[in-house]
């Protein structure tokens, strides 16, 4: 048919509306085309934003298909099948909002009245981060039935808070010349604002010739694009970093000036690990020129000793730097090579290349101010640091940067704030929304801010939280410990047992490590479960009531989370009226809060979390319900005084982050090279646990609290020898966790990409074990097992099996989602041994044994079950677990 009307969707009659993407945490700025008939036709990047500069990643590009998913939750649903199980059909019936709210309010009020601690929240809405704080209004509930922030961020966030006073960190795209990515996909596949970072990364690599080295067990996209891929045995990355540190210090490739003047590396440490202090609590350094101890801020200091052993006030002590040097004696390239399988020559060479590129001593003038120029930076994320010794892992990577002086320097490794609230927010010298300015009162050192998601949960025995957060003063919530505590509550002295659950935009049964059968048992013991979401998932299958939330394109929000090189606020606004009988999360939580009598408390929590007190006219008042539009407007006004009308027109207020926020914003105070703060908190906790006679205090892993990273070996390396291979999970840019696998366009690009189509195994390993392409294999760890099809690739370490997130769904009701051979996280432990008592970081690498279940059938087409490649029907027919 001849058509005069356009056939291309962006050209059809309609209008463009600026809004944001919500397919990950990071609110890239988008333009959405809506036809005259109100059909959403196209999503593009908004070119006016210096963040994603008019582009989107595939997740963002696929956004409009989520809106039109026929299997979206369209009305409140009530379960009519009393039986609950992982694949049990809830037999949902639609009910009215009135009935839904009646039931939800009745059940939650019961819990609130009995004991608010009996609620297990799993609230993980991307971008409406303030919702995560709702349980605080629910009688001060601080439980976490999810690990979404901890799987990757357990060790990451507190260390950033202690070193940079930020939540995240990244390398500086503008000036870096030598970029190391260790176990992180920044600039290629994941983490902070990927559609933004990928652009800046391409510019840096291709236009400026930036050299990229990627250290990881699997050849990720970053590894494929890098100048060098350094394969490494999983969970040994800290040792690689310590090996680099050994070479840097041995060959004197260090920025002494930075270490001496801007860090506490010269501060003298006594034999108990604490700084040596005078009677007023001031720290000492050793002046090697005058050969005597002086207070850290003595104006007569001629130089600071970094090495040596000294006597001060009768105490034998060493500079913190010397303590680190002592640790590094065991971290020779040869020793590190044996443990990491990275050749010693590679460690030597990369250390030298890194130090050369760092240009120690160079300076640069930016905006009229002179900074050190250090264009060599070590970046890292979950793969490198998400292991038992999370705190030490993160600390080690930071120190690589500190040694060459590239911490927070142009070209180096910089801090990234979670939320910057208002335009002139100074995260060092200014008050945060709820944390104090850095005073430098402790001998000029930065005031640590280990907590930025929520205030510290106070110690208590018996515990008030089901995940033992009462004993993790520095940690991000290890929600997976629920697997342990709710199975053996008496062991931990609980005087309550939870029976209610609220799941909002979360899939806790998918994200939490641990024995899956125990998780299912915990779920089946719940008296009442309510879920709030756009689509159903493996966890909502257990709910009694599901409440439909608006899709991204139907809702309001104002946010900008962890932008690496920009700042501002991004407006999400509806482009159409809601398709179904859904509500915004704000309206849902307001209604529930009002009905159970906690609305005022909820408004107080929102004021607190969002820092509205900084402009008191924005404060939410008691007795009133504030909708998503009103809260979004306040966030915009708080940022730059512009109202919603302005934001609806411009879409955002994003600009490049100013140099004063990025580069050495703490100048004048000292960065913690040595974290005495950690052992001080350890000893406070120890004392409290002793006073309260906490029965498990002697089982607590006190050695996890370390002021410096050392060469301790993660327990994952010490599993019984029959578990002779490592298994890791991964995603690439197409996937957000796995929740977007329900979108057909994502399904199409994922299932055409070999890395997502089977469990990756090295060819030599496969040959040794008689495994051929597409054989059905099983991975068994001490904690669980999964199945999948073998996919032979040169791009994986020979001891490692790599499992894409795409293979780990098990819901089988959704027409597009392909059930896989089991959730990877069930291979992981949920015990105290494998969690960092310091940071809450859990182990994300598994030790497994590999077995072949069956060879690929000759006529494989016959045995593909449903729309998955992973469950040969013969296996199903034999009744084996899938």
């Amino acid at each position: 048919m001849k058509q005069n009307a356009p056939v291309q969707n962006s050209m059809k009659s309609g209008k463009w509306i600026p809004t944001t993407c919500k397919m990950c945490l990071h609110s890239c700025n988008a333009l959405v085309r809506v036809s005259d008939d109100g059909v959403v036709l196209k999503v593009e990047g908004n070119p006016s934003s210096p963040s994603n500069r008019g582009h989107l990643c595939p997740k963002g590009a696929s956004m409009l298909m989520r809106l039109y998913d026929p299997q979206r939750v369209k009305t409140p649903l009530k379960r009519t099948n009393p039986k609950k199980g992982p694949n049990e059909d809830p037999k949902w019936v639609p009910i009215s909002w009135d009935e839904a709210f009646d039931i939800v309010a009745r059940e939650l009020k019961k819990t609130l009245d009995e004991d608010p601690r009996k609620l297990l929240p799993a609230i993980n809405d991307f971008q409406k981060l303030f919702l995560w704080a709702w349980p605080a209004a629910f009688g001060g509930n601080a439980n976490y039935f999810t690990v979404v922030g901890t799987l990757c961020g357990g060790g990451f966030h507190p260390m950033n808070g202690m070193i940079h006073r930020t939540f995240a960190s990244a390398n500086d795209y503008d000036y870096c010349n030598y970029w190391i990515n260790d176990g992180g996909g920044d600039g290629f596949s994941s983490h902070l604002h990927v559609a933004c970072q990928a652009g800046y990364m391409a510019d840096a690599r291709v236009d400026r010739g930036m050299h990229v080295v990627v250290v990881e067990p699997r050849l990720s996209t970053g590894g494929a694009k890098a100048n060098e891929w350094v394969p490494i045995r999983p969970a040994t990355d800290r040792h690689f970093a310590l090996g680099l540190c050994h070479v840097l210090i041995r060959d004197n490739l260090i920025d002494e000036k930075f270490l001496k003047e801007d860090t506490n590396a010269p501060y003298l440490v006594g034999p108990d690990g604490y700084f040596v202090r005078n009677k007023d609590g001031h720290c000492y350094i050793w002046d090697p020129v005058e050969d005597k101890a002086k207070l850290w801020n003595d104006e007569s200091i001629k130089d600071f000793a970094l090495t040596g052993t000294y006597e001060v006030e009768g105490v034998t002590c060493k500079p913190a730097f010397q303590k680190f040097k002592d640790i590094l004696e065991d971290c020779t390239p040869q020793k590190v090579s044996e443990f990491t399988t990275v050749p010693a020559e590679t460690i030597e060479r990369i250390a030298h290349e890194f130090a050369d590129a760092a240009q120690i001593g160079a300076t640069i003038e930016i905006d009229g101010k002179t900074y050190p120029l250090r264009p060599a930076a070590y970046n890292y994320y979950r793969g490198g640091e998400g292991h038992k010794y999370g705190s030490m892992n993160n600390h080690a990577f930071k120190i690589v940067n500190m040694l060459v002086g590239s911490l927070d320097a142009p070209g180096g490794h910089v801090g990234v704030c979670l939320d910057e609230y208002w335009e002139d927010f100074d995260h060092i010298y200014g008050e945060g929304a709820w944390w104090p300015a850095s005073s430098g009162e402790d001998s000029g050192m930065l005031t640590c801010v280990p907590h930025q998601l929520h205030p510290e949960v106070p110690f208590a025995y018996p515990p008030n939280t089901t995940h033992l957060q009462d004993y993790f003063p520095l940690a991000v919530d290890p929600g997976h410990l629920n697997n342990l505590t709710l199975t053996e509550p008496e062991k931990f002295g609980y005087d309550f047992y939870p029976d209610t659950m609220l799941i909002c935009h979360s899939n806790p049964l998918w994200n939490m490590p641990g024995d899956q059968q125990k998780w299912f048992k915990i779920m089946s013991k719940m008296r009442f479960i309510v879920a709030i979401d756009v689509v159903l998932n493996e966890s909502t299958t257990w709910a009694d009531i599901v409440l439909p939330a608006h899709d991204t394109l139907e809702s309001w929000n104002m946010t900008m989370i962890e932008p690496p090189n920009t700042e501002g606020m991004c407006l999400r606004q509806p482009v159409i009226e809601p398709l179904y009988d859904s509500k915004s999360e704000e309206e849902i939580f307001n209604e529930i809060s009002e009905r159970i009598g906690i609305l005022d408390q909820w408004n107080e929590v929102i004021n607190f979390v969002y820092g509205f007190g900084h402009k008191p006219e924005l404060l939410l008042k008691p007795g009133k319900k504030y909708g998503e539009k009103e809260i979004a407007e306040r966030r915009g006004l708080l940022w730059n005084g512009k109202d919603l009308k302005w934001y609806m027109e411009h879409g955002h207020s994003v600009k490049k982050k100013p140099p004063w926020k990025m580069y050495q914003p703490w100048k004048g105070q000292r960065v913690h090279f040595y974290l005495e703060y950690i052992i001080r908190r350890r000893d406070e906790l120890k004392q409290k646990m002793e006073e309260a006679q906490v029965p498990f205090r002697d089982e607590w892993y006190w050695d996890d609290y370390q002021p410096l990273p050392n060469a301790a070996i993660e327990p994952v390396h010490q599993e019984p020898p029959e578990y002779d291979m490592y298994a890791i999970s991964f995603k690439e840019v197409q996937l957000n966790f796995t929740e977007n696998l329900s979108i057909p366009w994502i399904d199409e690009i994922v299932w055409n990409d070999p890395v997502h189509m089977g469990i990756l195994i090295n060819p030599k390993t496969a040959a040794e074990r008689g495994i051929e392409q597409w054989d059905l294999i099983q991975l068994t760890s001490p904690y669980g097992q999964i199945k999948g099809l073998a996919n032979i690739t040169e791009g994986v370490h020979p001891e490692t099996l790599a499992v894409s997130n795409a293979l780990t769904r098990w819901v089988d009701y959704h027409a597009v989602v392909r059930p896989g051979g089991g959730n990877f996280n069930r291979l992981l432990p949920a015990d105290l041994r494998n969690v960092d008592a310091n940071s809450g970081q859990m182990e994300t690498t598994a030790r497994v044994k590999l077995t072949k279940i069956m060879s690929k059938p000759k006529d494989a087409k016959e045995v593909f079950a449903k729309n998955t490649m992973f469950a040969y029907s013969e296996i199903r027919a034999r009744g084996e677990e899938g």
Partner: protein
Amino acid sequence: MPKWGMVIDLKRCIGCNACTVACKMENSTPAGVLFTKTLSEEIGKYPHATRVYIPVLCNHCEDPPCERVCPTKATYIREDGIVLVDETKCIGCGACATACPYKNRVVLHREPVEKGLYKQGILTPFEKQGYPRFVIGTAIKCTFCHERVDAGLEPACVNICPTEARIFGDLDDPDSKVRRLIQERKGVQPLAHHNTKPKVFYLE
């Protein structure tokens, strides 16, 4: 009169397939139909292994075999070099799909259009307004986003790409970015030995 062409910078491309999705979104293509996609291939042996990502699309050849073999002259070349299919003339013989050395054309089947993207025979409003552009049983392919280009915009795949790995422009304009890149970075044509004179060039 411009001579439209595209340059693909393989150094920038990260194989994310945002282009694949943007194209499907722009053109309402049903499941299984990809006017553009990104191939990936492993090279080398561990530990010296790497992977390359290669976006492919219709090359809008200057001497296209698809046009030559078309029995009804449904496939035609515009003055600006864009190769299109007139769906009113196409009889769906598939000769063009066979003739194309790049395998970048398909004959549209009924099944994916009826089944819908969500596979249940329920078409989303997006599909309902989009599918009618197609005539089932005719040859379809990338059109270099001819309507966008006529309005002075870039093709959808170029527009979305987060690493700006795709560059579109007038190959006859010596100052255009495409010409400069081909010259400076030594752009190569895909399967040049087939002599179809493709107008998509690759930079390594």
